[in-house]
Each structure stands twice: as structure tokens, then as C-alpha cells.
């Protein structure tokens, strides 16, 4: 029918009143939120600047001159972090998915592989990242494999990050694969698709959608952990800040590096929120609840 379109002019008196009431409710909520946020900010600020050591803290952590001098150098270092982030994220996705798939193989022939993967995941989820960094960063060069040449610290750091994060991400993927309802698998197999076909065409597409939010969470976590490669001597944002701190005898460069990492994380966090809400809208019909 063509005259299905909603015409707001036809609203009854009662409905207009209801809408007006809801609108005023909404405006009141916004106002309350605004006032409470402002009040909270003011209290927090006042208690900070009135603390007895604030002057000294301000000098050694929030010095404007040091801030402006350190910013370009720390930014330079951040570019290295971004490169490491890019390669380790790709590596983690591929390796993590591979581990997850190996772990879901059912056939008894694959028992040793399944056990191996399980051992790997247990090991690297248990090991602190910093120890993995030391082991890879100083252990691999220590093997003196001449044909590899001198491996740069950032490459070793990337390897360590991939090793650790793949173990986490593999578990996220596995949870996603197992969360796909068995009936989906049955339906796929009933059509004659093989195990790997049903995995690739039916299960994984649904699993990936389910795990997108937790994956984004791991990505945010990875984003700051790339700063740890500085312990291997790579001049990244954290290392650059450290050098400036030593130079100025002032902690402001750490604030600079911290701010840059936060700025880096915000778009990812927002993107993750957006994904989650879109997913919820698409797959669930929930009405007003």
C-alpha cells in the first residue's frame, strides 16, 4: 500500500502529550548528567591542585617546555610502535586463528597436534609478556645463527608479541567457534558440505561476528603492549621518552608518551563499541527493552 507512510500531523492529543512528557524527561536527564559531570570534575580538580605537593608535581610532570621539545622525538618513536603494531596484529590474527582451528579438529589422528596446541596456549598465556620479550630478544640472537644476520630489536619484539597474543586470541576464536549453535553445523553437514567447508562457509563467518568485540579488546591491549619492546633497546615512543627524561631530569616526556598511546587507543575503542551495537541491532529483535 502506498499510503502506509506515517503522518505525524494525525497524532492524537494523548499521544502528543505523551511525546512531550517523554521529551521533557529526556531533557531533564541530560541536564542532570551535565550538572553531575561538571560537579565531579570541579571537585576532582580542586582536590588535586590543593594537595600539598602539587607545585612540585606540576614542575616535574607537566612542564610545558619539556612537553614541546619532547613531543616530536616521542612521536618519531611512536611510528616504530605503529609499525610493530601493524605487523604483530596481522601475525596474531593469522597465527591465533590457525591455533584455534587446530584445536577444534576432531579426528583422533590429530590428537598430538591438539595436545601441542593446548600446551602452547597454556604456556604462553601463563608467561608474563616481559619474560617472553627477554627470552626471544636475547635468546634468539644468542643462538648465533649467522645466516640470519643481526636481527633488529623491533623484529624480535614483534615475534615475542605474536607468540604471546596468539595464545589469547586463539582462545577467543575457539570460544567463538564453539558458541555457534550445533544446529548450524548440522544444517551445513546435512547439505553435504565437508567439515572444512562448513567451518569456512557457515561456522567461521558467524564465529567471527561473535568475537569481533573481544578481539577489539585484545587489539587495544596489544596497542599499549607494543610499548614494552623498549626493554629490548628499540627506540620506540617509550624509549624515546626515557631518553628525554634522562636529558631534562623531568618526567614530562612520559606524560607525552602516555597521552599519545591514549590518543591511539580512543578510535579503536569507539570502533569496538560501534561494532558491538551494530551486531546487537542486526541479530536481535528486542523491542524497547
Amino acid at each position, binding site marked *: 500500500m502506498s499510503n*502506509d507512510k*506515517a503522518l505525524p500531523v494525525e497524532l492524537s492529543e494523548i499521544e502528543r502529550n*505523551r511525546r512531550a512528557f517523554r521529551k521533557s524527561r529526556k531533557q531533564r536527564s541530560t541536564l542532570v548528567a551535565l550538572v553531575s559531570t561538571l560537579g565531579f570534575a570541579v571537585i576532582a580538580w580542586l582536590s588535586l591542585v590543593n594537595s600539598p605537593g602539587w607545585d612540585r608535581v606540576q614542575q616535574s610532570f607537566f612542564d610545558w617546555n619539556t612537553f614541546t621539545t619532547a613531543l616530536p622525538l616521542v612521536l618519531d618513536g611512536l611510528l616504530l610502535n605503529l609499525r610493530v603494531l601493524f605487523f604483530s596484529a596481522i601475525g596474531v590474527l593469522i597465527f591465533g586463528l590457525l591455533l584455534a582451528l587446530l584445536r577444534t579438529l576432531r579426528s583422533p589422528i590429530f590428537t598430538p597436534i591438539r595436545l601441542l596446541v593446548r600446551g602452547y596456549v597454556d604456556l604462553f598465556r601463563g608467561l608474563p609478556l616481559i619474560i617472553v620479550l627477554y627470552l626471544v630478544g636475547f635468546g634468539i640472537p644468542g643462538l648465533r645463527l649467522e645466516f640470519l644476520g643481526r636481527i633488529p630489536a623491533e623484529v624480535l619484539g614483534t615475534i615475542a608479541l605474536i607468540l604471546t597474543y596468539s595464545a589469547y586470541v586463539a582462545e577467543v576464536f575457539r570460544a567463538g567457534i564453539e558458541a555457534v549453535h550445533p544446529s548450524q553445523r548440522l544444517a551445513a553437514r546435512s547439505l553435504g558440505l565437508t567439515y572444512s567447508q562448513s567451518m569456512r562457509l557457515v561456522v567461521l563467518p558467524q564465529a567471527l561476528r561473535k568475537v569481533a568485540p573481544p578481539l577489539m579488546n585484545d587489539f587495544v591491549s596489544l596497542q599499549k603492549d607494543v610499548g614494552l619492546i623498549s626493554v629490548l633497546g628499540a627506540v620506540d615512543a617509550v624509549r624515546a621518552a626515557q631518553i628525554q627524561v634522562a636529558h631534562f631530569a623531568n618526567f614530562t616526556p612520559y606524560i607525552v608518551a602516555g597521552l599519545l598511546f591514549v590518543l591511539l587507543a580512543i578510535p579503536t575503542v569507539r570502533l569496538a563499541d560501534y561494532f558491538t551495537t551494530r551486531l546487537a541491532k542486526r541479530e536481535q529483535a528486542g*523491542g*524497547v527493552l
Partner: protein
Amino acid sequence: MSLDLGPMILNVKNLKKEFEERSVLKGIDLEVYRGQIVALIGSSGSGKSTLLRCINLLEEISDGQIFLNDEDISDPRVNQDLIRRQIGLVFQAYNLFAHLSILENITLALKHVQGLDSETAKAKAFGLLERIGLADKADSYPDKLSGGQQQRTAIMRAVALEPKLLLLDEVTSALDPELVGEVLELIRDLKAGGTSILMATHELTFARDVADWVVFLDGGVIIEEGPAKEFFNNPQNPRTIEFLTRLRRRAGDA
């Protein structure tokens, strides 16, 4: 309507519902009296389910009013949770909680909404399961039960709270034909016990035998309504006649 009507439980006045630009309900007027069964019939997409969801305040309506026992429940000032406690809703796909046994499915709201202590809630739920012959399955999980058993449990989950009005949304549509009977039998029981019911259904025979009033919905408007016998024996509107013929022919095929 027949003569001796009890008090009016539900009164829907000129209800309209729009989704974005699409108008799903275009001014529905409907009354349910105490102890009555009112059957909503109509093809898929005619707005039956939307109407039920609006009445249970699961959808915000676009215009009109809904009264439950003379209280305007479409007023935004009412506490919607308190209203929903007085209206039961049973879904086509049962929607039992998969992580709870069927006994726990029933006791959940008894404990957390009505505030009964664990023992009393259990005893009450057990009594209800006994009534539908599922006492021996009390500790089973929904997945282990047949569709008919699940749907009867779902109805008891709603009935346990002693709602003033029970809404049934095509509760037999997902069931095997051989399981439909046991669910309809339960609804007949509830009516005998005095429960007021508004049900969307495709079970024409059941509607004719058990419902007091039948409403035919098409394209978001009420095309025709009347007392069940009259409605089925002597439909007036050509669209009603067409719908009934179509559905009966399909039933004949099966």
C-alpha cells in the same frame, strides 16, 4: 457480545504502531472481559504479534491508549515493570531459559519478582508441573523436552505469576501437529479456571470451540469481529471469507 459480561480487563483504544516509515497497526480497538478468551486471527504479517507485544509494553506504541483494569498503561508515567508483572506472555518459540531446569524456569520469577522464599516457590512450581504431568521432569533442562512439553512449561511459567491477562502468541505454530493437542488442552483448562486470555492463533477449530470472541486482523486493521460461532459460521467480509477458505483448504491438505 453475549449478555453477562464480567468486568473489562483489557481495553485497547485506537492503537497505532509504526516502525520507521511502515505502519503496522492502524487504529485497533479491542476489549477483553474477565474469564474470556479472545482469538486474534490473520495471516502472517497482519500485526497480531506486534499487537500482543504492544499490550505487554514490549514495544512503544505510536498512538492510542491501552487500559488494563481501567488504568492507562500506555502512560509513560506508569512503572512498566509493575504492569508487565500483571500480564503474562507466552512466545511461539517457548523462550524457556536454557541455563535453568524447567522447575527453575518457573521458580525464577516467583522468587525474584514475587519475593517468595525458595521452598514456597518450589512447592508452587512443582504443583504447576504436576498439573501438566511434567513433575517427573522437574530437573530436566528445556533442550531435553519435546516442543509440546516445553511450551506447556512456558505457559505455566507465565501462569505461575497469576497474571490478570495472559497473552499467547501463536503458541502452537512451532509444534508438531501431534503435540498441538496437549497445549490446546492446557489452554482450555486455564479458561475453565477463569484466566482471561488474548491469543493470536492459526487453530481455527480451537478458536471456534473455545474462544468467546474472534477478531480478524489484516494489514493492521480489524476487518471483522464477532462471537466465535457467528464469526466462523457466517462471516460477512469477503476478505474474511477468503482467509478462512484458504486456511481451511490448507488444513484439509494436511
